[in-house]
């Protein structure tokens, strides 16, 4: 199993962070979750979240339990983390249009208000947020980062699982990780992924 560093799965909501948590769990990694957020139509296999993490602006006590485990932290909360601990970040990337469509569908089905911004304006803000997060990560050497494209994870799970295993320097079960990927759950897509080359 990986060492005592904290594995952080990050990215925009609906960019594949739950999928990545599933892969890590299937590979044998311990997760920091509290199971409070139940599975639903949008994440039938669960969200793999920890409620305390959402309060990271004010409370980082969850970090005490996070060593050697994987935890989901939204991109906006990364700069609130302390910079003196070893962290490995798997940062999920997904086409912004797909992310926005997926977010809007989810909010609509839950009867919750979405931003009244146009998709282009929302994409513009998310781009800036992501750029800020990437820059923050680049500025803090204790945070080693692996960027994973959601389409690659769906289209080439075995390769991606191998890459993650190397990044985490552990003995994850790569085949099980790949088997955890269900392409049927890739619903808001612009077009089929091209071959990885």
């Amino acid at each position: 199993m990986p060492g005592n560093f904290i594995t952080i799965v990050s990215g925009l909501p609906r960019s594949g962070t739950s999928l990545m948590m599933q892969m890590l769990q299937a590979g044998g990694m311990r997760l920091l979750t509290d199971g409070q957020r139940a599975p639903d139509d949008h994440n039938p296999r669960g969200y793999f979240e920890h409620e305390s993490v959402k309060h990271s602006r004010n409370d980082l006590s969850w970090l005490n339990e996070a060593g050697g485990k994987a935890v989901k932290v939204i991109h906006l909360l990364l700069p609130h983390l302390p910079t003196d601990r070893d962290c490995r970040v798997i940062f999920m990337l997904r086409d912004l249009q797909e992310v926005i469509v997926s977010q809007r569908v989810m909010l609509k089905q839950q009867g919750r208000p979405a931003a009244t911004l146009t998709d282009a304006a929302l994409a513009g803000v998310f781009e800036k947020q992501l750029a800020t997060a990437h820059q923050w990560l680049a500025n803090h050497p204790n945070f080693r980062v692996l960027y994973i494209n959601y389409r690659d994870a769906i289209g080439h799970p075995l390769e991606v699982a191998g890459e993650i295993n190397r990044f985490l320097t552990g003995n994850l079960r790569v085949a099980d990780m790949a088997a955890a990927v269900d392409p049927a759950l890739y619903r808001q897509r612009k077009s089929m992924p091209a071959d990885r080359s």
Partner: protein
Amino acid sequence: MNPSRKRKVLLIGWDSADWEMIDPLLQKGQMPALAQLLTSGVRGNLATIQPVLSPMLWTSIATGKRADKHGICGFTEPLPDGTGIGPVRSTSRKCKAIWNILSQNGLKSNIVGWFATDPPEPINGVMVTDQFLIAPEDKIAKSVHPPELADTLTALRVPPTSIMGDDLLAFIPRLKEVDLKTDKRPVKLARRLAKAASVQAVATALIQSEPWDLMAVYFDAIDQFGHEFMSYHPPRMPGITEQDFEFYQHVMTGCYRFHDMMLHVLLQYIDDQTNVILVSDHGYECGHRRLPPEVAKKNPEGCHRGFGIACLKGPDIKENERLYGATILDVTPTILALLGLPVGGDMDGRPWLEVFRQEIKPERIFGWEGLGDSKAGLHKSEIRQDPAEAAQAVAQLVELGYIAPPGKDVQETIQNTIRCNKISLVRAMIDTPRMAQAVPLLRELMAEKKEDEWCVLTLARCLHGLGQLKEARLLLETTPPEVKHSAQVQLLLADLALAEGNRDQAISHVEAANANAFSHHLLFNQIGRAFLQFARWQEAADAFRKSLETEPDNPAALDGLASVHLAKGEWESAVEKSLEAVGLVHFYPEAHFHLAVALEGSGRPREAIAAYETALGLGYQPALLHRHLVELFKPIDAQKSEEHKRACIRLRQQPMFRADFKSNLAEGQPPGA
């Protein structure tokens, strides 16, 4: 100008400075430094723009653009991470400021204390932001560019505790009689004095130690002092106790004299290659039009006057001249012209070429945006963002359940801030007028709060302006009876009735408005204008005169009176009033047209041609103007007459644009303001 000499510009901003306060002090010899500037320089009124909110205005001064282009729409804005609100930030500005343009042209700027400059942009020169003056010790370094100057400059900050009782005596001569345990006003004064002294200390250091082509220094103290102490300025206002008056009546004059002393010091450090520009963003009521103290506290914007000050002196500036028709939007174009740089065609102001010693024709480019950005000292693109959009995006992530929501109070504060800034943006748009752009924003505002009276009336005005009469009427029908009978709504209904061809009904609405009008110059202007439409000259003139009684610096009322004189064939009086109107606001196409008609009527064809051409240049009904110019040029220049004739033919099929400045003045403020 001699291009071989390296020119510099010292720009000093005195928030709220007003000639009505300054002139009596000049007469008494109590502002010698400013007097020195004026005796061999240029002075003028500087028209402000709507809404009269300092962060928007000082950003307009620094960009030459209105808020819809520069994006700064209030004092505060949501924080990008959605955790609350904070002072408006430089990252929210959507266009280049003068210091960016200078940077990309290899010129250096030292900027001190300017509104909405934090975090500091990495410009060619020094940027000491507005937050530097109030930042806690551990954050000061983040308010200075380059950061290595932070320590030196921090040592120059004047802490309020260092202001001693003796320092306040010039403002409060009877300070020893004030009970400082219960009366905190002297402490507030000390705090503001310390801030102004900090600006001065930093500016005095930088003006000597750091090379510059533009040195821009902003002082907010006159405005801050005004909001606290103008009520005590003589003559004594109703509601002010005799003791308070006795204690604090000298604060405002002391404040102006203090600024004069600071000006004197800064002027010691300039050379004969430096042009000095001193401006304020608006004036401040200091006489009988002051709001009662309790009203002023609730409506600080209502304390402001529409005209600030402009004063110029230097090697490229004429001596002992007056500047007419200037607005705050002109400052950046003027600095660019003085430094030999092109003026952006997307800027809303004009350079004050008429007060330049030598006639020049500055180069114009389409705009500075997107040109030479890598050298402009701009923030990185990822941190430049619209704060309202950023807050909305964060709110969406909260709704998705990925971040804990901020407290309810915080959410409300963020929403209120976004709303206030959106209203300010709408007000900026309808000041131009850009009704079509304002309508979607007004609909958004109404979707959030259906009963907002200002939104309803403003949307109705916009819809009327856009010819959507039915929708405008429907909207007004939804207002409660007391609102419907108000003068503003009656005037709107009159406009609608007139547009629908119902003249009698329109007249009865105007009469109702006149009967219900409260004393406000903008309302009287609207009533006067309405009577003009029905050729009821005497009632129109009465309304405009009432308007001038409440606000003498009032271009719309002056132009209204000019219209009355024109209708009566009183040409010379019409010329006089029109000249007064355009003297106050140059960008007033309709007044230039009225001036031209009056000059033509009084038998001065060449002057009339110049006035028609000015109105044409400002976009006023080109077909109509060309027709006048065809006739006027016929006896003196047949070729030009033909040119205007051809222009007439070209325009015949095009829809007419009615530059309706007067109604925009009225629409620039919420009802009751």
